[in-house]
């Protein structure tokens, strides 16, 4: 399952809180023209560094597929950041 929602929450030292919900699929669709540009750039980078493009694509896909469930929570004094991938 690819990530569906990325949640970012942060609390500043002055106590202000922000929550950001990023729906991955719609954002990916909006950014798809940029992704189309990124694919040839990645291909050139793979060829330049002699890395198998198929292997790199497969590895990136596996990494993306494994992301759901990841959660980072850092609290320092009154400042806090939470990133959660679902």
């Amino acid at each position, binding site marked *: 399952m690819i990530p569906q929602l990325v949640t970012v929450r942060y609390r500043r030292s002055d106590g202000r809180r922000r929550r950001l919900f990023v729906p991955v699929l719609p954002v990916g669709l909006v950014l798809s023209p940029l992704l189309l540009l990124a694919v040839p750039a990645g291909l050139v980078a793979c060829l330049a*560094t*002699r*890395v*198998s493009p198929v*292997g*790199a694509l497969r*590895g*990136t896909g*596996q*990494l993306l*597929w*494994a*992301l*759901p*469930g*990841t*959660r*980072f*929570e*850092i*609290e*320092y*004094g*009154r*400042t806090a950041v939470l990133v959660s991938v679902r």
Partner: protein
Amino acid sequence: MDEQRRHILEMLAEGKVTADEAERLIDALERERPESPPRAASGPKPRPKYLRVMVNWAGDSGGDGPGRVNVRVPLQLLRAGVRLTSLVPPQALTKVNAKLDKSGVPIDLTELKPQHLEELIEQLDDVTVDVDDPDAKVQVFCE
């Protein structure tokens, strides 16, 4: 049914204890043995899915107050990351080896094969690290 539980039920049947007393005795028996095998009897332990890192510190050492780090990473993500290492070109590994050697860390990364790393991830299931300090606590475990 174990011996002690059977004995309690026999006492209940003989009227030596009331139902409430029997219930309390059985509860006490279960509290004494929280690790007793209902889970073991229900089959093998489910495999953990996440690696969890928790750090808590009090922040008395002149910092910005107490802090907390709570990281949960799917083990599948670690596996995927480990597989990506197989894409690192050998010439890059040679350069990294040379730098490591120069820094006094004589590790040959070309000897570290992806299957070794996969085995390492597989064995992470049983890893538990607990560091207790008066000011900080670190826990690493799989869940």
